[in-house]
Structures are given as structure tokens and as C-alpha cells.
């Protein structure tokens, strides 16, 4: 359809005329860095508050308490077999079968698991958003999508204050062509009577563990 290409581009040029004026983008808004580097107490508090607003569960734990908190959460949700990304740290959760995504699990295998345990690339406090970047502890996209229960570990240094901070930090990931997923709370819909209900196709339960120290 190369003729389609030339035709569309010719139409666009004709429509714009000889000297279309391209405005400068005024950036009087709060740009990246306007709130400092993140990871501070106020930013972490804000992140936890905003995640909880989406009816996700947030637990703040110290490093040595993480594995215990994961055990408790899995017990509560009755999760016995959960996936972990190939690039995740060597987590162990007592009483839970961790199925490493190496070799890659098929979508059907993922569908039969009770949940997934992942880290994240970064997190945005202002909007309570977790960012997955398709590598390392984030894992590939299907992993954190198909199972019905998502446990996500967020470290203090992962948390940036604002959306511009997050977008700036992800520029390199985008340039490398890695897929990025922004997750703000569990799957939800407002399609019927504008009533928000959690859970349609993505994980219906999201537990976030904010690890301090």
C-alpha cells in the first residue's frame, strides 16, 4: 500500500499549506524533579495512601519482615502456587510453590496458577502507580496479567513523586523498545451505572508490599 502512504502524506501537506506554525510547548507545569528525588518519607506516605485509594492492599514492612508478610498474604488469599519472573530475586515464601518463569510459562499454565509475585521498575506516588518494564523483577507482561492475584514488591528507592518523574525515568526503557505497563490498582470497570467494581480481566486482587530499609 505504498501509494496509500504517498497519498496520505500528500494530503497532509496540502492541508497544512505552506508554513504551518508549530508552537513551543509551554512548560509552566511541575516538571520532573520539582518534588526532589523521591524515596523520602512524605513521598512514600503519599504512595501508600494513593494505592490504598484504589482498594489495593498496602503493607509497609522492613526488609527482614518481607518474606513473613508474603507468607501471611498468600495464606489469606489461599494462594499455593504462584509465578515469579525469571529475573526476580531469589525469593522464598514458606508453604508456597514459587514457579519461576524459566523456561517461559504458557498463558494456559499461568491461568492455572493462583497468583504472581513481582517487583517493579518504579512507582509513582502522586497517582499510586506501579510501573513494570518487562525486565528483571517486573517480568514479561503476561506474567503479571493472567493470574488473578498480583503481589508486588516496591522498594523505597523505586518511588518517584510525580508522573513527569516517572515518564522521565522511563525514557531509556522506551528507547530500548521494552514494553511498559502502568498499574494503578486492581482491574476495574465503571461500565455499568458508573459504579466502580474491582476485577474484570486483569488481576482482581493487588497486594503491594512497600519495603523499608
Amino acid at each position, binding site marked *: 500500500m505504498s501509494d496509500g502512504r504517498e497519498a496520505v502524506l500528500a494530503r497532509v501537506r496540502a492541508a497544512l499549506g505552506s508554513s504551518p506554525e508549530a508552537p513551543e510547548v509551554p512548560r509552566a507545569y511541575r516538571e520532573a524533579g520539582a518534588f526532589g528525588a523521591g524515596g523520602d518519607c512524605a513521598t512514600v506516605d503519599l504512595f501508600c495512601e494513593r494505592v490504598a*485509594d484504589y482498594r489495593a492492599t498496602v503493607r509497609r514492612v522492613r526488609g527482614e519482615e518481607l518474606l513473613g508478610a508474603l507468607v501471611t498474604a498468600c495464606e489469606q488469599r489461599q494462594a499455593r502456587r504462584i509465578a515469579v519472573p525469571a529475573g526476580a530475586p531469589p525469593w522464598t515464601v514458606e508453604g508456597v510453590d514459587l514457579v519461576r518463569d524459566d523456561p*517461559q510459562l504458557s498463558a*494456559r499454565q499461568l491461568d492455572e496458577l493462583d497468583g504472581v509475585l513481582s517487583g517493579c521498575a518504579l512507582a509513582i506516588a502522586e*497517582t499510586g502507580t506501579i510501573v513494570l518494564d518487562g525486565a528483571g523483577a517486573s517480568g514479561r507482561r503476561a506474567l503479571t496479567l493472567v493470574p488473578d492475584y498480583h503481589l508486588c514488591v516496591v522498594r523505597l528507592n523505586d518511588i518517584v513523586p510525580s508522573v513527569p518523574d516517572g*515518564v522521565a525515568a522511563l525514557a531509556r526503557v*522506551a528507547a530500548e*523498545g521494552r514494553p511498559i505497563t502502568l498499574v494503578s490498582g486492581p482491574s476495574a470497570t465503571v461500565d*455499568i451505572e458508573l459504579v466502580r467494581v474491582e476485577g474484570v480481566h486483569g488481576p482482581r486482587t493487588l497486594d503491594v508490599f512497600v519495603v523499608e530499609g
Partner: protein
Amino acid sequence: MSKTGFPAAARQALGDTQMRRNVGKATSTIRARRAARVAEVPDWEALRDAGAAIKARAMATMPEQLERLEASVTRAGGKVHWARDAAECNAIVGGIAAGHGARQVIKVKSLATDEIGLNDALAAQGVEAIETDLAELINQLAHDTSSHILVPAIHRNRAEVKLLFEHTIARGQDLGWDITAIAEAARRHLREKFLSVPVAISGANFGIAETGTICVVESEGNGRMCLTLPRVLITVMGIEKVLVEWRDLEVCLQLLPRSSTGERMNPYTSLWTGVRAGDGPEEFHLVLLDNGRTDVLGDELGRQALHCIRCSACLNSCPVYSRTGGHAYESVYPGPIGAILTPQLRGLENAPTLPYASSLCGACYEVCPVKIDIPSVLLHLRGRVVREYKSRVSPEALAMETVGRVFGSQRRYEQAQKLARLGRGPIVAAALPGWSAMRGLPEVPEQSFREWWRSRPARPVRGDGAGP
């Protein structure tokens, strides 16, 4: 759908009291939600200014941006197609589906594919398109059309959806009255499709020329499923969705969710660049669609309609939309933005009543996250309708000419005043039945000022004689 024009379609819609209740409740709820989320952003106006400039810049440099986008996507292993119109786009998508022997495709909600009638085109070649967004699924099962950009089945309440599902995807079950159970029925119905259908079709919220990254924002996770699990992904993107640089997202991803659903951020935003070995589809096709967009771009004032990021805040704030609902606009783009976009996309002659589907109150402009001056464009298009399509011998043109002559002469003007006093009601009702049906006429006084002046008794003017 046959087009009757906005006034007739609106009259019919207004007669549907259930629909009016549903739409009225939905629009007022979401208005309040949006207002609260916008109020907590101190630099909202600065973000709007930036958003408007980001879109204006992308439009002004569109040829360059589209070529950059094509190069970036190609470099990342995707294939870019160009479609002049709906037929060409449908043929491209249909050809790809056929090439993979697909009998079914799964779809992420997309206005662009609704606009070009993709589902019907695929059905004609024996391919079933399955809508996976909950509201789109509802409309598809009910053989209904969208009434709202964001929540396309908002004209239906839970009772209607419950009954619909119990007669289709959840036959024989009692889903109860809880919306969670109704959503769960959709989840069960579609899960197997996500795991087995090999081809998915999506739209795009943004396409970044700099990196070749395509962005889809959503809530349910059906988007992520379609974008991640099938082997082949086809994205249909209107050419106006192109953005210049990655950084533009830092503005757009703040403006869109707060304006749209009134959330700080929508549950899921997917950003992908071409194909990625071991993660997601093995084949990615991006179809760049014109279908009238370059006509819109050719109108210097009207082209700002292309800045729209489909948030639907203008629908929710519009006193006309919140009473008629979306069907009256007879387009996939309803509400104030539809009133300026549809006539420009289809040609004014094909939607001449839409620029009048507004009271020009300006609420749409105030809430627009990219500051599209909808009232000004409406007025501009009204002018164009009159200049370009209304005949010079139309009743309106003749009436205006007559009024011009009457007002141009004192004698004719005074005669007309006398005539008006005599036959006001019946003459107007007979001459302008449509006009007078919706408007009251002012009372014509028994005597005009000039008549009174001439008839008053001659009296000496005070102060002429001796002083007090």
C-alpha cells in the same frame, strides 16, 4: 443507521425516559468525580496549556512526525500500513486476518475501528470480531450502538445488562443484582478467547514518533490481554494521534485519566514498541488512518477538533448531551466534540444539523484538557453550513433578505410593525412553524414609540418662558 439529523433524533431520544435517567445520572456523577480530581492538581491550567501546544505542534509538523513514527516502528520490528479511507483500512486489516487464517479476532475498544465499520467488514469476509471491553460487549450482544465515548453502554442500567447477559453469555444463570457478578460473567466468557484467539485489534491513544511507542489506556485488563497474548496485533490509529516525543506523555498521562474517568490514573496503561522477543505478539501491524482527517486539518480553525484525546469530559458537561444521550448525534463521536468532528470528517453536507446541536454555553471548552475551543468551531461551522450548503432561495435566506429590506426603510419598517400587531400569532405560526414551535415571541405593544411621539398633544416646552 439512517441519518435523520440531530433535531429529529434528539426528539426521539428525549422520549426514552429510562435512557434519560441513566444518562443524566451518569453524566452528573462523572462530572463531580472529574471536578474533584482536577481540583487537587495545582498546575492543571499549565498542563492544559502544555497539552494544547503538544497537540498543535504535532499537527503542524504531522508529515515529519508520521514518517518518524513509521521509521521507529519499522526499526522495532513492526510493519506500518497507510489507509486513505475506511474501505482501504478494512481491506488491510481483513487481509492480515485472512493471512493468518483467523476465523475470530479479539478487539480492544476503539472508536477509530467503530468509525470505519471494521466489525461489519470483517463479518462480510467470515471473520467474527469479538469486543472485549465490557460496555462494547454489552452493545455487541444487544446489537446496539455506543452512546458515550468512555462508557458506551451507559444508556443501560444494571437490570437491563443482567437480563441481556442471562439471555446470552450466561444463559440459564441467575447473576443477581450485584455488578461484580455481572462483570464476572464477562470475565468467564472472554477468558478462553484471550487464551486462544490468534489475532487482536486495537486502537491507540497516543503514538510517539520519537520512539515508535504506542499507548493504550484502559481499566479492565482486556486491553492488556489483547495487546499481550495473541500472536498477531493490529493497531488502527488515526493520524492525529501522533505525538512528537516521549516526554509529551508526562502531560497527556496526567490530563487524560483525570478528565476522563475522574481518576488520578486509570488502572492499566500499556506502552509497547514494535515487537519484543519472548514478550507479547510476534507480529505487529500499525495502520495509519486518514478517512477524512486531512479534510479537518485543511480548515485552519476547525482543525483543533483533531487535538481531541477522547476523554469525554465535554459530553459529561454538556447540557444538551446530558439530556439527549449519544445516539441523537448519529455518530461514534457524540456530544460537543462530535458536533464539531463528525461534520468535518464526513463533510458538512452529510451532517449539517450537528453544528447547531449546542446552546453555546461554553462548558465544553472549560473542561477540555487540551483547550479545544468548541463553541468557536461550532459558530465557524454554522457559518460554513450557511455559506456552502444552504441554498440562496431557502426560506431562511429569503426571510433574511426581506428583513434586511424592511429594516432599511422607515416607511416599510412602520408598516411592518402595524402588520405584526394585527397578525402576529397566526402569521408567524404559518410562516415559521418549526421556528415558533420551540420559541415564544415577544408581545408587540399596542403603540410604537414613534406613534406615541407623533400622537402626543403639542405643549410648550418648560424652560422656554420666564424662569421660576
